């Protein structure tokens, strides 16, 4: 087996460890640091170092080594924490992340940045401790670890192949059990040496089995915390007993909870436990495409089930009672199965929210503001693909709130508010949607300022616009009310991108704001992209699906409501609004469709802020459809966002509301161009109706 096979596992684990590290660093109480958290930070660095060493990522290994040394001082209370020290730690953590990314992309990490962070860390050690952190890679400082834990990467031992030397420590094991265990170990490899050391009985083993395997075997006989396995560098077994005296004292610590460190001891005891025996059994790592495959198969099952259901419904219920009962049972089971499978893709919002404490901390410091971040509904679940795409828009919104929303401490005090601003991130389910809110208790949006700015930007506004309409102005491209452009925000490229991204995910953004009390930005998203609430419509003999979220209403137009415009454009008057009419059969060349407007049904739809009337022959009904990608085997089709499979097994296309509008324009232009002789000016394209 090739060691590179394990790279991905390492990268993923290291990423998680770095995330944990950052979380703990941010939560650290500077005056009274929690020993458990310091340990957790140290452990994360140590685990990454172990993995990096195994895979030969020298730069990463060396950086973590230096980092680990300093962390060790803080952990032992020899280095008092200060805010700037934590800042340096965070910086070092970022650097590790960059290095990890570089290795992941098959590149060498930035040597200059590496040198810089090494120097910073070394200097810190010098200044604070008066000791020089050794630069040599073989780590004497790493040896007296209080937690002789197994190699953090379970696969490293296995990957190393044969010839690895492992030291197995049996703690407080009765003599008869011990003999049994040593015999067992003898079957796994060659026992090189064994000796007793107080309560510990140390066995050095030459084996090709991994540390995890050995633990697994041992755990049949004794408790997990009675066994400790760690790997020794091959060939060092002979020299090991000589250096051994260095190891036992710290090792004894978790075993005998010394009264000197009552707080640290309980934390250390579990941490010394082998990883495999810990939380790993509660989750497994599965590639996303495997999950998607299951979701697809379940989707198929649902379709087959509804086909069967259709056939069975034609049977006589009395004569085939058992069959009908079976069908309804099948239906229920299939739905339950679908729900359960869909939930696999769901991840808690904590995944998204966890990256904001750092951002808020850094940004608040940069802007000289005091901000407290509160997160609510961390356990609310959302489709994994959506969580990844929501991060960028949410980051924009948080930046905006910090920059424009929350005032400086002095201003806040003057306004009678607490000096510390409060930024709340919350997530909750509502029906088939998830609501994500960014709430600040800042100054709120300024209506007059927005209107003035809008006029300057050439947008058509009036003083009679409602607040909601005014707030929506900030989503207009190029719109920013920031007095000056900073690197935080103010370029006006943010909010329209936010809106577009969120619409791309099938959601929308709302803004609530009260002067002096703050602003709430609410993002409403569907729970998943894999299933869509659709309205099926019929045009000619063909069936299409409209996303229900885009449908506002439907009506049968009368002669009086239809107005012809220049060219062949038609407007439909709905209440006090004139909407352009787009006939599906014209845009998509459907044959045998009803051409008489008053026989058709107008579905009022809204997409990308445009509202228009879509002419269809019939409405069939609403249903949930499984979204299938057209681009897997084909290509992007204009006017169509995806496809789905109907109950009878045939394919129906899901229309892209915004793209239909564009397609209609292109078609009309093409038709005009072909109709008009050259030299004649094309008619003025009819003006779009802005949504109200």
């Amino acid at each position, binding site marked *: 087996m090739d060691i590179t096979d394990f790279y991905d596992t390492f990268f993923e684990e290291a990423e998680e460890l770095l995330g944990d590290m950052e979380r703990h660093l941010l939560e650290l109480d500077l005056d009274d640091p929690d020993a458990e958290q310091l340990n957790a930070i140290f452990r994360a660095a140590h685990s990454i170092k172990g993995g990096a060493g195994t895979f030969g990522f020298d730069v990463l290994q060396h950086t973590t080594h230096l980092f680990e040394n300093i962390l060790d001082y803080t952990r032992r209370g020899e280095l008092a924490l200060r805010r700037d020290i934590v800042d340096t730690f965070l910086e070092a953590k970022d650097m590790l992340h960059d290095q990890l990314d570089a290795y992941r992309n098959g590149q060498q990490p930035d040597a200059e940045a590496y040198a810089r962070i090494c120097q910073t860390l070394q200097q810190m050690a010098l200044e604070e401790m008066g000791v020089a952190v050794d630069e040599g890679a073989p780590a004497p400082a790493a040896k007296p670890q209080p937690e002789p834990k197994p190699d953090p990467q379970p696969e490293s031992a296995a990957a190393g192949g044969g010839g690895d030397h492992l030291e197995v420590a049996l703690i407080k094991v009765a003599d008869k059990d011990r003999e049994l265990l040593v015999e067992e170990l003898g079957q796994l490899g060659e026992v090189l040496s064994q000796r007793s050391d107080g309560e510990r009985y140390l066995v050095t083993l030459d084996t090709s089995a991994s540390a995890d395997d050995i633990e697994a075997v041992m755990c049949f006989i004794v408790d997990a915390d009675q066994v400790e396995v760690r790997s020794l560098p091959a060939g060092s077994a002979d020299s090991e007993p000589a250096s051994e005296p260095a190891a036992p004292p710290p090792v004894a610590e978790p075993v005998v909870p010394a009264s000197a460190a009552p707080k640290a001891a309980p934390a250390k005891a579990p941490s010394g436990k082998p990883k495999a025996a810990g939380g790993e059994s509660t989750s497994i790592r599965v590639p996303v495409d495997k999950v998607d495959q299951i979701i*697809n*198969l379940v*989707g*198929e099952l649902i*379709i087959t089930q509804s086909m069967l259901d259709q056939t069975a419904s034609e049977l006589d219920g009395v004569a085939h009672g058992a069959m009908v009962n079976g069908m309804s049972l099948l239906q229920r089971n299939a739905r339950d199965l679908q729900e359960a499978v869909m939930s696999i893709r769901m991840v808690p919002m904590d995944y998204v929210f966890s990256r904001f404490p750092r951002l808020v901390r850094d940004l608040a410091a940069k802007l000289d503001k005091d901000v407290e971040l509160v997160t609510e509904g961390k356990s609310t679940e959302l489709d994994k693909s959506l969580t990844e795409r929501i991060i960028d828009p949410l980051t924009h919104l948080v930046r905006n709130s910090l920059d424009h929303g929350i005032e400086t401490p002095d201003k806040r005090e003057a306004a009678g508010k607490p000096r510390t601003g409060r930024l709340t991130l919350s997530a909750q389910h509502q029906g088939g949607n998830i609501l994500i809110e960014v709430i600040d208790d800042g100054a709120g949006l300024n209506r007059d300022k927005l209107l003035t700015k809008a006029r300057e930007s050439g947008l058509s506004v009036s003083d009679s616009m409602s607040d909601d309409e005014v707030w929506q102005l900030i989503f207009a491209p190029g719109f920013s009310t920031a007095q000056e452009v900073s690197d935080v925000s103010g370029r006006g490229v943010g909010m329209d991108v936010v809106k577009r991204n969120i619409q791309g995910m099938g959601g929308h953004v709302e803004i609530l704001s009260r002067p002096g009390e703050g602003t709430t930005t609410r993002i409403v998203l569907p729970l998943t992209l894999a299933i869509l609430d659709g309205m099926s419509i019929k045009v000619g003999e*063909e069936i299409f699906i409209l996303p229900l979220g885009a449908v506002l209403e439907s009506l049968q137009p009368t002669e009086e409501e239809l107005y012809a415009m220049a060219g062949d454009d038609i407007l439909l008057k709905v209440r006090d609004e004139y909407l352009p009419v787009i006939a599906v059969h014209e*845009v*998509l*060349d*459907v044959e045998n469709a009803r051409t008489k407007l008053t026989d058709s049904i107008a579905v009022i739809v809204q997409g990308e802020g445009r509202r228009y009337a879509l002419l269809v022959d019939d409405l069939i009904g609403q249903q949930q459809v499984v979204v*299938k*990608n*057209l*681009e*897997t*085997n*084909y*290509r*992007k*089709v*204009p*006017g*169509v966002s995806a*496809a789905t*499979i109907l109950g009878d*097994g*045939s*394919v*129906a*296309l899901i229309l892209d509301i915004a793209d239909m509008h564009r*397609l209609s324009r292109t078609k009309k232009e093409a038709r005009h161009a072909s109709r008009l002789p050259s030299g004649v000016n094309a008619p003025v394209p009819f003006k779009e109706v802005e949504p109200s």
Partner: protein
Amino acid sequence: MTSNLNAANVAAADAHSREFLVFSLGEEEYAVDILKVQEIRGYENVTRIANAPDFIKGVTNLRGVIVPIVDLRIKFHLDSVEYGGQTVVIVVNVGERVVGIVVDGVSDVMSLTPEQIKPAPEFGVTLSSDYLSGLGSLEDRMLVLVDIEKLLTSEEMALVDHVAE
């Protein structure tokens, strides 16, 4: 002379005979490498795609996968294009994609030795010899060996977003 080279390469690389699935388009006999063929199924339930070239008949549901259907008879400008009981779809794997091609019928599987595969001459405007891997001569029959992968991923088939890739 790429085609000559292709045929020569094929012959050199493969000392053993290769198997081809033979299908008919009108009166002509064509063949594709059997290793590219996933399955053969009837022509049914094809959903039309608007604003696509006429030879793209639409998409169909192949056990949950949306597969585009190409009618090679239209692409090759055959006179009569009819859909009947004999009309079949050969589902082929090209690259990572699955595509169905409509043909008039599938006759048999033929084994061709390298000697039986002749280089394709430079001919044809409709079917450029770039998309042929040679001509198979079999006693009195002549099989046009189509390099289905090249043909279906070509720009003129409009099956693949070339800009995107």
